[in-house]
């Protein structure tokens, strides 16, 4: 039996194990999920050891001399403290390296969110009101003006829908009815976005399902 046929048979068996979920949760489906989790965990561990720990920590320790070696002591110490977390009694030692990690990720999140998402999204809403965009041959382009206003109001309504969920209980009655109204408009825009996203994911999943069924048919036809 060639390797291609063997790998194809493995793929076929695993596919059928996953599709067995159509008849309800069962042993084959759970085994398939366990295999996926185990392979992914094993592969991730192998990549982390061979691509991060060895080249960034172990190799530089052997190759570095003098003052530069001091720069490697700090990450080594942090890595050892994290490693000791395997033992439940020593898990508290991991707090300092994990705090270091939280600090780095918090800073990257603040910078990334402000520069990468918040500013571009806010600018995309505001730039629609740029005079060059709202004019056509010196005359107001009403279609673009209406669209720009709609985008601005829609975004505000969606943001108020968040506020509406958070402060629903605290608000007084008059305040609550106003928030309810604007929040409902926001909910409509959120619903439209979620509906479109649902269809996008559903279409992708359907294509995956069809491609898998076609692959099974082709593989079995090749065997016979």
């Amino acid at each position, binding site marked *: 039996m060639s390797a291609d046929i063997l790998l194809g048979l493995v793929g076929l068996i695993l596919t059928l194990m996953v599709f067995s979920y159509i008849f309800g949760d069962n042993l084959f489906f759970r085994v398939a999920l366990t295999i996926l989790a185990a392979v992914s965990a*094993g592969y991730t561990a192998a990549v982390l050891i061979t691509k991060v*720990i060895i080249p960034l920590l172990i190799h530089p320790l052997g190759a570095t001399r003098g003052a530069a070696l001091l720069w490697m002591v700090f990450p080594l110490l942090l890595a050892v403290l994290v490693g000791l977390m395997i033992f439940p009694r020593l898990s508290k030692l991991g707090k300092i390296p994990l705090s270091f990690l939280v*600090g780095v990720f918090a800073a990257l999140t603040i910078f990334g969110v402000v520069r990468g998402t918040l500013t571009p999204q806010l600018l995309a809403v505001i730039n629609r009101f740029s005079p060059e965009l709202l004019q056509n041959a010196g005359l107001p382009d009403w279609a673009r003006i209406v669209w720009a206003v709609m985008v601005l109001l829609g975004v505000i309504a969606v943001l108020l829908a968040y506020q509406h969920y958070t402060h629903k209980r605290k608000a007084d009655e008059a305040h609550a009815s106003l928030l309810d109204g604007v929040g409902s408009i926001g909910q409509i825009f959120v619903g439209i976005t979620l509906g479109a996203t649902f269809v996008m994911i559903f279409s992708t999943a359907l294509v995956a399902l069809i491609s898998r069924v076609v692959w099974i048919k082709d593989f079995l036809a090749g065997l016979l």
Partner: protein
Amino acid sequence: MKRIIPLFVATLTSFFVLAGLIWPVSLGGYLNIVLDWAIIVGAMALLVAIAHLFLAQWRKIARGNRSSFYSLVFVIVFLLSLGGGLVMGVDDPEYRLWISSIQKPLEVSLLGLAAVVMAGAGVQFYRTRGWSPLTVAFGVSALVFLVIDLGFLQVLNSPPVNAIIKTLQMLPLIGARGLLIGMSFGALIVALKALTGEGVGND
């Protein structure tokens, strides 16, 4: 005191990283060193998490639990996968072929299965949430975009229909912008809370 040291470390690190990102010319070199350290610590933390997962399965086998069969499968496949990667190297074509031959059919089949599950989840959404502006807009939007995605309307090649489709396709962008801005504010608040001590070093 127990709480102050981790908070001090987190705040100091984040201010240094932010300073490095804002003034890359003066601090860029040091920032790269700190980011390398973060990669090492992050990798180590992930390895510890995987080790915990492995040990939990190992203990289940030792205790002979009812679910120890799954644990046995996990331990065997994990060791084969890890051992293969360490002995052959993760870049070895044969090792990668084996890993992808197991992962790809499972992932694609699970995605395909998601189509069946999602069809049911769409109905379940109405049962749990009831009728509201959100659920009605969701249902109408899903139906409209399903019809548009089929491509039959585009075949008509009618300029008014195409203009309507183009306008409809831009509608989800409004909600998406609002959601992204809202989520960004949420992420900012979580990050700032971490730096001010909420969630760091709690016992």
